């Protein structure tokens, strides 16, 4: 598989063409005695859309959790040229990488607007500045169908709407690299298509995307390259 070969050689190939956004070297993650990821090495260049594919339970999500710092990791992660400290989610959030996590992790008791505006926290502490900023307005405009739910509590929305809010929150952070973990888990086909359509728009703006996707067909619609993960190993 050409994509896989490219992934193995990592930055060496990519760097010639473009600047690397993310470089992962010898990443390994363990939960207790269980090894979830073993020695993963790959790189993502700026402007790329890379899909992490592979069967469930093979460590795709763990890789992403390790990169952003939500899981304890071994190995090295470089983000836009600087080394990311381990176990520090806030650092990655402030250095241009925002995760839209699996199962969304919204703030259920807060309104949709508050959920989205909190995305701005990664670059400002000023509520007024956040509310008048371009990324926030762009984020709210991503899914016009959300508009009539803006003042509703996020916890009362349907799964599809919650996924949209999660993506909008991620975009309010104005990330240079947006990582999306299993965006279509538990969603109907029509909603999944809508989600991918918007992810496509986001990529078209020139943002780098990393998408964890279980369904390879869906991933291929958008991804410029695939990194395949099997049994906790990048192949």
């Amino acid at each position, binding site marked *: 598989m050409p994509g896989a070969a490219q992934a193995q050689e990592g930055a060496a190939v990519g760097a010639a063409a473009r600047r690397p956004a993310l470089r992962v070297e010898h990443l390994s993650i363990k939960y207790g*005695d269980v090894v979830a990821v*073993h020695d993963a090495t790959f790189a993502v260049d700026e402007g790329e859309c890379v899909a992490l594919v592979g069967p469930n339970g*093979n460590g795709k999500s763990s890789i992403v959790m390790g990169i952003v710092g939500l899981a304890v990791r071994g190995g090295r992660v470089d983000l836009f040229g600087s080394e990311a400290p381990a176990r520090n989610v806030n650092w990655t959030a402030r250095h241009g990488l925002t995760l839209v996590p699996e199962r969304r992790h919204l703030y259920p008791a807060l309104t949709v607007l508050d959920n989205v505006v909190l995305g701005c926290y990664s670059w400002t502490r000023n509520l007024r500045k956040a509310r008048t900023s371009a990324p926030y307005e762009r984020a709210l405009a991503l899914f016009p169908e959300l508009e009539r739910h803006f003042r509703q509590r996020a916890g009362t929305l*349907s*799964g599809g709407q919650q996924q949209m809010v999660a993506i909008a929150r991620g975009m309010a952070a104005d990330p240079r690299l947006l990582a999306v973990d299993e965006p279509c888990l538990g969603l109907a*086909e*029509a909603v999944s298509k809508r989600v991918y359509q918007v992810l496509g728009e986001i990529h078209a703006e020139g943002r780098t995307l990393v998408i964890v996707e279980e369904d390879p067909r869906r991933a291929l619609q958008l991804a410029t390259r695939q990194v395949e993960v099997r049994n*906790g190993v990048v192949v």
Partner: protein
Amino acid sequence: MAAIPARLRPGAPEGADRAAGEGRRRRATGLTGQLSATGVVVVAGVVVMAFWAQQYIGSVFVLALTYAVVTAGMAIQIGFSQQVAFSQSVFMGLGAYGVAVLNADAGIPSVLAMLIVTIGSGIVALLLGRIVTKAPGLALAVASLMFPLIATGYVTSANYLGGSTGMPLTGNLFPSSSISASVVGNGLIVVAVVAVVVFIGSRLLGSDLGLELYTLGVNEQAAAAMGVVTPRRKLELFVLGSMLAALGGALYAGTQLFVPATLVGVTTELSLLMMLFIGGRRSVIGAVIGAFAIQYVQGASNYISIHILLIEGVLITVILLIEPEGLAGIGLRLRQAFRRRVAPGRAAAATRRGATGTAAAGTGDATAAVTVRQDGAFATSWAAQATGGDASLLSCAGIDMAFGGLKVLSDINLALPQRGVFGLCGPNGAGKTTLLNVLGGSLQASSGTVQLAGQDITRLPAAERFRRGVSRTFQAVQLIRGRSVVDNVAVACLDSNRSSLARGIAFSHLGAARGRAFEALDYLGMGAVADVEVSSLTLERQRMVELARAVASKPRVLLLDEPASGLSEVQRAELAEVLREIGRHTCVVLVEHDLDLVASVAERIFVLAAGGIVFEGDGESFKASDVVGTLLMGRAPTA
């Protein structure tokens, strides 16, 4: 490809026969444990009473035992079953004052008064419990927090109870002209009571009823869907905890011969909780250990009694930091560490069984195939149980459902036959899960009727519907963390659902339930993981455990909520095989987003949108349908 480090592998595969045998063996060891714990109490009690009855050691021993009766009740109610109520000190006071009043004012002997008061408290608790146990978790905790305050206000103002000082009494539990004989007699009575409480308490927690209570504590909704009559169990727990508290209070009065007004109130409540948490909140033994630890620490030296608050503050913090399960948990860990040194193999198995690891994306399990054994005993007996006929088994008519002003379902009519797989599709938020909840009894419809085999079940709660053969899985996996796979499945195979807690003290049929659970696991090809702690499995294995739990009762109706969510393509294909096989025995309602899967297994598919059924048909017409195309697949409508 780099070498993959070995993952913890579950034990060697075992068949249902061996498994059932193991279940029996484990039950036997349980009994040994209960008897030996009781034995320790009796022997220690007799020795202390024989040598130190009138010394400091003896008097604190008896005091600690009286508290241990109360904390044992708390371990069952608060720790193990997680029904957090702060009313123990009130019932302890009721017991103590009750004995004092009956003895001092009415001249009734203390032992008799103790029996009367304990039963009386049970009746009070039953009446009070009917109101308070209806309150959900945190509300019950907060409301019951007021009870000690209410009682304190009353007791300190009531002159006939001695006001804010308290009330003396004269009648020893063991009345005798010789003081030393009374002291020893009192002590032995208390020892006997505690021995009985420890035995029946730990026996209850180890029984099939104990499994019910544990499930209730971890996840009330899942417990109800598996046949646990939750309102009744909650009431029983409240009554049991309150009666043991009253019994402890009665023993206190009968041995200390004075009831201080402070016995009722927040201070006592908090120190009881402290005993429970320091000792180990989930076990009766732990509760007893905690009572002893606190009582002996308090009086160990002059220096300690002066600085008791400081020392207890540090002590609780340190113990809970080391082990949330308290001293009993520390003991258990030490024993495991010891066993690991002596017999490494056995200890590893024990750790695995007791491990509470986080759900991990494992590497070994992911490739495990999902298979179904069509020839096994389970399949045969399930097939035999089904009755013939084409009459509709499950039907609903005119179902409306509204939450507040929001209408989620309107006028749903369905009629499903005895066997087959029936798909229920629709966009997110269409009301699919709500409809499943209405059919399963987790929700009551605003209007309309649900019928099962011609009988109206509209108003029946989930547990009763389960008993009549309606079983289900949940969209988000709802398993009982901290228990093995086989116990998770055994919850659905219990005979105890309709019996009272008292039955669990006398008999345990947990072994039999585990045996049936093994059969169901074997049917789905999962016998090998039976002993693994459930949250250490990968997500798709957890889904299969949930499926095994749902089929283990050989239900007539099986409601599945997105069973393929999070499964890979290969696993979906395997799941489809399993669903087809199950559909030969029972009526399966399948809520699922994977349209290919639904179309390949379901003989009839219903599409729900905005609370109404907009399409009904077989797999072929489903895929060809325009409604389905625009609504579910995001196709542009063909004009």
